[in-house]
């Protein structure tokens, strides 16, 4: 039951956030400072999620050759800035990761 409640709650808040603006169809207006601050939310939240996963997969900062997450992400970022193409970035990153992981095994 705890699980049902948790999932229902997660579904409710997620849908609420996504729907409130659409439901009001532009009748909600935000202050300029709020809109400007909101503009930082997506990249900031996403980077706060992935930074520890990539740079400290074992729980400590690891920039050594033994950390495939770091090197694969570095290559993917390089390709991302160079080509500006999402699919290429993802595929190159994944292939690089699998190769690194495989050579280390």
């Amino acid at each position, binding site marked *: 039951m*705890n*699980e*049902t*409640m*948790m*999932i229902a*709650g*997660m*579904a409710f*808040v*997620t*849908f609420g*956030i*996504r*729907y*409130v*603006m*659409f*439901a009001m*169809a*532009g009748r909600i207006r*935000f202050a300029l400072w709020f809109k*400007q*601050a*909101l*503009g*930082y*939310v*997506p*990249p*900031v*939240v*996403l*980077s*706060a*999620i*992935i*930074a*520890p*996963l*990539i*740079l*400290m997969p074992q729980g400590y*900062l690891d920039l050594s050759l033994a950390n*495939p*997450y770091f090197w*694969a*992400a570095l290559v*993917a*970022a390089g390709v*991302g800035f160079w080509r*500006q193409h*999402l*699919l290429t*970035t*993802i595929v190159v*990153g*994944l292939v690089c*990761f699998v190769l690194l*992981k495989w050579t280390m095994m």
Partner: protein
Amino acid sequence: MPSSKFTEFINGAKATIPMIIGAIPFGIIFGTLAEPSGLSIWGAMAMSLFVYAGSSQFIAVGLLATGVGPVIIIATTFVVNLRHLLYATALVGKVSHLSQGWRALLAFGLTDESFAVVNSRYLGRTDTVYAHWFFLGSIVAMYSNWQLCTWLGIGLGELFPNMTNWGLDFAMSVTFLGIIIPYLRNKPMWLAVISAAAFAMVLQDLPNQLGLVIAALSGICIGYASQQIEVRIRLHKATGDVIKATSGVIKATSANKGSHKP
């Protein structure tokens, strides 16, 4: 001539393919993580069906594994998904003519991935009569893939209990990395992203993903503050330039007046 509903729908699904490739391992790993974290098979499937938000599903599973209660998990979901408010704000003008049912449907599927795809469909285009079908095509493709992968992951997790060590979670990281890159166009954004990453790492050991929340809020504040400072500096410079230019013009005119005799 505007393209037909069907063409729009198919194009939306097609444009989402890169996102789907990133989401396949991501969905599978979510499925495999469910059981070790203490979530039931039905719970994992229900999360993908009804919450349908990859990153917060991952975080929820991680929190569950450390024994955190539902209230904190729901609160974390709220903070992590708050970014979707921005996506909705950006797109609301494009959907406000649609029925409430359509709007609810499109809102339900407003993920990072579909937003990135749909937003670039709308950018600078005027042929948007049936563009909501493009939006729906993106959602249907992304959603069905997510369900399929969750289900596959649950099955694979049963077959290979040590699959969680394979490092497939990198798929989520690299997809998010790819989504972040286009945002990095100015100094305030760089500062915001780097400081959020640094705070997230330093505060990683705080309980209940508190570090993530603090890191995100700090990143937003730092980005916003540096944007304000940049604007001030530019304004200051611009005012200086205007004063210089005006005084230059005044000098020139007075000099002209002095030397020129009709």
